[in-house]
């Protein structure tokens, strides 16, 4: 076992991909000389050269579209969009080309493209730099959405994403880059199909992903001290959703709390809630609860940012309420 960080695990995954497959290259703003705005790609330019570590101009729509074209042309691009906030400038290329060309061409062309971006709030970057839109992206057919919440997934999801013949968007929560964790020395690719039970429990299912996994696990520990045995599920892949794993948990616990950093209305938590209520209406002993972000652009001051996004006390309260505990 080695101890490493989420950031270094992603860098190791990129380095491995570049080494294994000559078709792989990394392209995006400041991935080269600057070393990546989150220092993920630091050192890669020196190691792999400017042909494979490509600094782009500030042109999100075009370098994402160029990634789509390069994938069509036989390459395996890893496009880094610095943050999800800027990806809105490339949304047309993602929705109307990356997600759609395979279908419009009657299956003649696939787009083996990986797009990585940082997401989420938590660093007081204010309204234009704190979006959590990964669940929103999960609405689009034709793409796969993944959100590594652990060092192991940060290390392993990229390779599997590159092997996927279709576009995969990887959302890295910006508060996780410094997170430490241990990895097997031979750690490598991980599957992208199954959600993971991060903490087994029998009383209530806490379903989350990405940046809120840690807070949800904290809440579960607190609940345990209170005699409530919570099961914590990490979705890992937001599209497609691994419903069998969620269903198994619901059948066991009969109570569900979904924790999602997206704005509540229209967040992924709504889809999960709707699906579970459709398939397990008669298994549920309590209404499905959601702990999401408040419907406000994220404010700058820490106390307001903290109040805007899900926190352990709210998760605990929702779980207790699902258990019928008061106060």
């Amino acid at each position: 076992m080695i101890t490493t960080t989420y950031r270094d695990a992603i860098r190791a995954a990129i380095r491995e991909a570049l080494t294994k497959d000559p078709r792989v290259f990394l392209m995006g703003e400041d991935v080269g000389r600057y070393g990546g705005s989150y220092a993920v790609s630091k050192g890669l330019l020196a190691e792999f050269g400017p042909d494979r570590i490509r600094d782009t101009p500030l042109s999100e729509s075009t370098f994402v579209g160029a990634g789509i074209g390069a994938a069509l042309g036989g390459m395996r691009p890893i496009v880094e969009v610095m943050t999800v906030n800027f990806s809105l400038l490339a949304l047309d290329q993602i929705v109307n080309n990356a997600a759609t060309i395979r279908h419009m061409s009657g299956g003649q062309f696939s787009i083996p493209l990986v797009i990585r971006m940082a997401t989420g709030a938590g660093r007081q970057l204010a309204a234009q730099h704190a979006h959590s839109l990964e669940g929103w992206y999960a609405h689009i057919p034709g793409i796969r959405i993944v959100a590594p919440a652990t060092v192991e997934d940060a290390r392993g999801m990229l390779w599997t994403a590159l092997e996927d013949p279709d576009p995969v968007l990887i959302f890295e929560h910006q508060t996780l880059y410094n997170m430490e964790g241990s990895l097997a020395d031979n750690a490598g690719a991980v599957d992208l199909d199954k959600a993971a039970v991060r903490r087994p429990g029998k009383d209530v299912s806490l379903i989350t992903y990405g940046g809120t996994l840690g807070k949800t696990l904290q809440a579960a520990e607190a609940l345990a001290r209170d005699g409530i045995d919570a099961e914590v599920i990490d979705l890992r892949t937001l599209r497609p959703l691994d419903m069998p794993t969620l269903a198994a948990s619901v059948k066991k616990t009969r109570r569900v709390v979904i924790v999602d950093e997206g704005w509540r209305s229209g967040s992924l938590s709504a889809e999960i809630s709707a699906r579970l209520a459709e398939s397990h209406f008669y298994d549920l002993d309590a209404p499905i609860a959601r702990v999401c972000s408040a419907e406000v652009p994220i404010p700058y001051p820490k106390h307001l940012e903290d109040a805007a996004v899900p926190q352990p006390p709210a998760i605990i309260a929702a779980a207790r309420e699902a258990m019928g505990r008061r106060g």
Partner: protein
Amino acid sequence: MTDPKVRLQPDQHRTRLLHEMIRIRRFEEKCAELYSTGKIRGFLHLYIGEEAVAVGALQALSPEDAVVATYREHGHALARGISMNALMAEMYGKHEGCSHGRGGSMHVFDAKTHFYGGNAIVGGGLPLAVGLALADAMQRRPHVTACFFGDGAVAEGEFHESMNLAALWKLPVLFLCENNLYAMGTRIERAQAQVDLRAKAQSYLVAAEAVDGMDVTAVEAATRRAAEGIRRGEGPKFVEYRTYRFRAHSMFDAELYRDKAEVEAWKVRDPITTFSATLKSGQATEVLVKAIEDAVAEEIAEAVAFAEAGTWEPVEHLLNDVYTPARDAHLNPAVGAK
């Protein structure tokens, strides 16, 4: 790239150019007819009047080169060598269509001829072309990517970003601007502060040339010059074709924005009649044109029959081709596999 069986006097390049233009013209006239009978639906954007551009320009490409087109791409598709049968079946939405019927008129795709669509988002194909050229450059392949777009697309941010990136990275992109003076009902003077589009290309240090888009030989010559420069490693080139759309923008356009007189004036410069006039003299030309028209009429009749005989994809297949199934794994060999 005429379908061999209908090719006349293969030795005569000029005859072939004429034949190609007439094929496109008659094909689209048939499409307009089929639209009114309801066989073809959705949006139908006719290229009539602009045939010299696709036919002349695509002479400069080799079979391995890539093409990225617009929603007005029947001419590009036929001139590139997509069979008329497959194209007509696509217009019908039949499974035998070149996009298996999923795309229709605006989304013609064909892997064999490296035809990357038919894109219905104005300017949406420009970044794709830059990426296709990047893939060629990184794999040291000597190919060129030809990207067609209209005068209207030049106003989109994607034009600016794509010209800059292609120029910055010296990528083999052939930017082919079909300036037919209008973007739907908006004349270029109402869309562009600078109506000389070459000046825009030059602002990225991209060499630019404008040519009479109604003259197929001039189009071919200019495009060959540009393509050769790219193959010599000079980076992207920009060619502006000054042309005109004879028909409405789409089948829903009442053409309130231009006078008949302007249209008639341009029709005098019809690329087909003006070119055939230069071919031979009198009788001989008539005979040649007659022979071409007969061959084309036959090809179109066959294409319609092919489309009519085509099949509708079963509704059970609705969800096909959203994601790549294992059966198509060959499209994307596992990473690392060489």
